């Protein structure tokens, strides 16, 4: 079995507080594996523990308990970050540096050679559309330019694993699309990406696997397909279903009548239940034109999951 890019076992972080206040559990014990070459998206509301997880993996914050490895090397060793690139949220490059100097200095800290740096900086500045501003001081850059420079910086050492915390923050729609294309190119090159973003549509388009964190706990994890198809909702195109057959599991979609055919929404927990329902409809004389799984968007799922756990908390609170 190949060594995963990221693996965590019971990784947790608790911040102790002063004056007898209860400690803050930023991340509850987490087991997570990200395979090499994956684009992994981390979702969660503010304060869910997303940035804490990234900081733990990069040695910026020390774990309270548990372990984590990057490519099989413990995060407690600095060598674990040898093949890692990182774009922090709200990063601040020294304002007195030019774009090119910034890339050169930070790549130097990653141990790249002079030749590699000279080659990569030109290539990456071109790739993030900053080749016209290479010798301008960073303090003259716009937010979007800073973000693109940050991405170039994260890629300078030719990393195998890249952590991007809100990579499209402050970037205009065109720039956002370019960043998305760049991420997909990186995926094609076999680079593992760990993405933290509030933009769910972006995660949905780019990521192969997603986890949702809430209050330091991982509440959902899987491929985008698995997660969005989880509620097993199907769109059924068929001849009119007799009114007495309509139940809360089969109901028409408003305004979908098209000649003799109409669209219905059908709920079925699994394939067996779906086929049983279809057999039942056929026995009622209904002719089926098409059946397709209906997927909710990642945003729908996110809101459902976050809302769900809030409801659970309320009921837990009541039962306690």
């Amino acid at each position: 079995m190949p060594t995963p890019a990221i693996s965590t076992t019971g990784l947790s972080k608790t911040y102790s507080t002063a004056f007898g206040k209860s400690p803050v559990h930023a991340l509850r014990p987490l087991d997570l594996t990200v395979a090499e070459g994956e684009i992994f998206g981390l979702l969660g509301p503010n304060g869910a523990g997303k940035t804490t997880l990234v900081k733990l993996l990069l040695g910026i914050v020390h774990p309270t308990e548990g372990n984590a490895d990057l490519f099989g090397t413990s995060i407690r060793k600095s060598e674990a970050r040898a093949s890692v690139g990182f774009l922090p949220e709200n990063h601040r490059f020294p304002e007195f540096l030019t774009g090119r100097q910034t890339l050169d200095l930070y790549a130097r800290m990653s141990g790249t050679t002079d030749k590699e740096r000279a080659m990569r900086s030109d290539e990456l500045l071109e790739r993030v559309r900053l080749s016209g501003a290479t010798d301008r001081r960073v303090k003259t850059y716009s937010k979007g330019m800073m973000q693109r420079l940050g991405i170039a910086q994260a890629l300078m050492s030719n990393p195998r694993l890249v952590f991007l915390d809100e990579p499209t923050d402050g970037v205009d729609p065109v720039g956002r699309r370019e960043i998305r294309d760049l991420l997909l190119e990186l995926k094609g090159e076999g680079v593992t990406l760990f993405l933290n973003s509030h933009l769910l549509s972006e995660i949905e388009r780019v990521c192969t696997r997603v986890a949702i964190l809430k209050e330091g706990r991982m509440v959902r994890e899987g491929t985008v397909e698995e997660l969005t198809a989880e509620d097993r909702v199907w769109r059924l195109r068929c001849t009119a279903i007799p009114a007495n057959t309509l139940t809360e599991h089969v109901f028409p979609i408003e305004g979908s009548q098209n000649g003799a055919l109409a669209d219905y929404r059908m709920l079925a927990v699994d394939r067996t239940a779906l086929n049983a329902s279809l057999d039942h409809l056929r026995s009622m004389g209904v002719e089926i034109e098409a059946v397709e799984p209906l997927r909710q968007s990642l945003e729908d799922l996110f809101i459902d999951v976050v809302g769900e756990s809030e409801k659970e908390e309320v009921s837990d609170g009541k039962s306690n």
Partner: protein
Amino acid sequence: MTGLLLLTLRELRARKIILGLFGVATLVWIVLALALRLDVIEGSLAGARLFGEEMSGDSDLTDANGQPVLGNSLLETFVFGAEMFAAGAAYWVGILLALFATGGLISSMLESGQVDLLLAKPLSRAKILAGRLLGVAAVMLSLLTYLLGMVWLVMSVKTGVWNPQFLLAIGAVFAMFMVLYSLITLTSVLTGSTPLSLILTFGLLFATLILAIGPLREQITQPGRSIVVALYNVLPKFVDVGAYIVPQLVSGQAVAAWSPLVSSLAFGILAYSGSFWLFNRKDF
């Protein structure tokens, strides 16, 4: 670590104060070179003029202990005296200015958004902090070498009296700067606040000035006296090093007691050890 060193050097260059200090150093030795007029006849000082004013020919220069400054001739006495003055100025004024100029470097490195970028690199935390300190030390040593080295060169060329002992002042001033910088480092790592680190360091300097007054220590009654004596022994001895060790070194005398410098260095080592330990454990 080279990357960090370069980053620190660039940051110091970007802070115009350091350039200002190099400018002042340049001004000092140029003015000295232009203003100093000596009439040296067969290796002896026949007359000395500074800014055109005739200087006294009597050798009445003494060190901080009241001992006459060593010199085989009036010329040597004059040179030693002038060099002691230069070393003293670098010590008492230069260190304060340099602390002010470099005081924010540790805190700026620890600012959110900057420290994350550094800690995510495949470098140990010790190397990151050491790289920063090395940058500060390199600039400070360059500044001192430039200032005192040029003063020494001007004095030596103009008078023909080559006093290599004077160059030891570079080491002494540099050592005491680094001792005081250890407190800035410790406070910055602990709190991330530049103003606080400067206030504490200048407060410490003020405290050592008071503690260095021997009769004051004698007058205080117990248990206050024990506390004051303990503080005097533990804290860096900025006054003692500047008033006794530096002049003795510069004038070629045997240093009467190294203990003020040794105990100051011990304080520095302890504060740096604490800074590294804290930096290693801290969450950012």
